[in-house]
């Protein structure tokens, strides 16, 4: 039998950060409602994400309805075809190129604007600048449109969140972004190296059957996933820097910096909850899940499972990270993980070269969002050397 769930309604439960903590800790799989299961234990989450009968595709889910066929909502050969399209843009060689020129320029610009200031809205005012700069360049979007893309994209994130917010604004924003992407593709602003042009070349070379609309939707989802997850996580990184867990100078050591980033990823994975669907009757950790059920996999719960991590809520670099799955697991694991980690490491390096201290000066200890999770309602000061 599944663990007995909570008395709260599923919508009320899922609107809370760390909702998994409200479910019985001894169970890994919980029935929240008829056709609605929560998976919170590390082993169960990994099993669910790798389960061949637990799928991402559901024609009624909000993202599928809003974006049409796309990489996030496909499975099997169709999903592999979508992934093959974006793979060239995320290769080690391309990441090395971004690391040499694109990232340093963007990060330097951001840290220039941060050094010596205190802000009470880091997430909205600063966290997006580097991710949007990188992904706009990769996508072949003119730099002058970055702010417009940010303005249109951020409300869209709610379409992928729980509870989902689906409004006329989100649908209008999808249409406008697809129009802008098509306009940019037609103008060939990326000089042959853009994601859209790479996708089209890969599609044609490999004979992958995708319509132009599917290519645009994939590009838009790539954009959303690449910008909003990183914006959220950069907010978490800066928040942890400001909590004084580490002396900043220690993070000049690349190995220590990498361990620090991994531990922040474990504790603050931007995508905290992933929804999947049972395509047939099946079991997860022995719990029966009927076909058509929604399966909510808690990455946050998996990464703080006391069965896997000692003192799971404690920030502790150097611990074994076996079982930490901040970029999910299975066929849908984030393809941009290496790109993101490179970006995060360079950002920290630049901050500590310019700042003697990063200090949280006000903190309401609040978190926001399930799909683009980040600390909110805090102030942070960047004190210069």
């Amino acid at each position, binding site marked *: 039998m599944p663990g007995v769930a909570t008395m709260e309604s599923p919508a009320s439960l899922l609107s809370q950060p760390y909702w998994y903590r409200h479910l019985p800790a001894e169970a890994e799989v919980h029935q929240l409602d008829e056709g609605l299961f929560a998976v919170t234990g590390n082993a169960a989450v990994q099993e669910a994400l790798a389960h061949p009968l637990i799928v991402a595709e*559901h024609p*009624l889910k909000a993202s599928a309805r809003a974006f049409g066929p796309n990489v996030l909502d496909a499975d099997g050969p169709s999903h592999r075809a979508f992934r093959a399209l974006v793979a060239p843009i995320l290769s080690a060689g391309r990441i090395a190129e971004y690391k040499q020129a694109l990232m340093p320029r963007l990060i330097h610009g951001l840290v220039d604007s941060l050094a010596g200031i205190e802000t009470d809205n880091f997430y909205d005012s600063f966290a997006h600048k580097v991710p949007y700069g990188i992904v706009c360049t990769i996508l072949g979007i003119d730099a002058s449109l970055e702010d417009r893309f940010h303005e249109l994209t951020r409300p869209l994130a709610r379409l992928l969140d729980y509870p989902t917010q689906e409004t006329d604004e989100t649908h209008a924003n999808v249409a406008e972004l697809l129009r802008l992407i098509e306009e940019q593709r037609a103008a060939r602003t990326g000089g042959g190296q853009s994601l859209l042009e790479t996708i089209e070349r890969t599609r044609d070379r490999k004979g992958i059957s995708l319509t132009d609309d599917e290519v645009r939707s994939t590009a838009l989802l790539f954009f959303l996933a690449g910008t909003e997850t990183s914006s959220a996580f950069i907010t978490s990184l800066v928040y942890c820097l400001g909590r004084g867990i580490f002396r900043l100078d220690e993070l000049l050591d690349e190995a220590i910096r990498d361990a620090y980033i991994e531990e922040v990823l474990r504790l603050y994975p931007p995508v905290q909850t992933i929804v999947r669907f049972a395509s047939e009757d099946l079991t997860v950790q022995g719990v029966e899940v009927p076909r058509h059920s929604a399966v909510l996999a808690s990455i946050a719960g998996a990464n703080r499972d006391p069965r896997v991590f000692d003192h799971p809520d404690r920030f502790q670099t150097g611990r074994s990270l076996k079982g930490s799955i901040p970029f999910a697991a299975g066929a849908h694991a984030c393809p941009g993980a290496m790109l993101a980690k490179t970006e995060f490491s360079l950002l920290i390096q630049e901050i500590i070269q310019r700042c003697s201290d990063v200090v949280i000066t006000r903190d309401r200890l609040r978190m926001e969002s399930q799909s683009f999770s980040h600390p909110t309602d805090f102030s942070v000061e960047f004190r210069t050397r």
Partner: protein
Amino acid sequence: MESKIVSLRKWLDGLHEAPLDIQDDTDLIQSGAVTSLQFVQMVIEIERLHGQKLDPGVITIESMRTLKAIETAVFQAA
């Protein structure tokens, strides 16, 4: 015995504390009759009322958007 569509209407009503005015052509998502997750859960209820597995081709936004569409695509098509 009440019709399947009446039973489905009752299921939808049961999701809310206050009575809802759901017409045959009410868009279930846009009207807020169901959340995104409840829209997915509704498929299980439809299949239960239908008494047999739904053809995957019938689980589309067009077929599930309104009670009238569900009646036509699922219950009357049986």
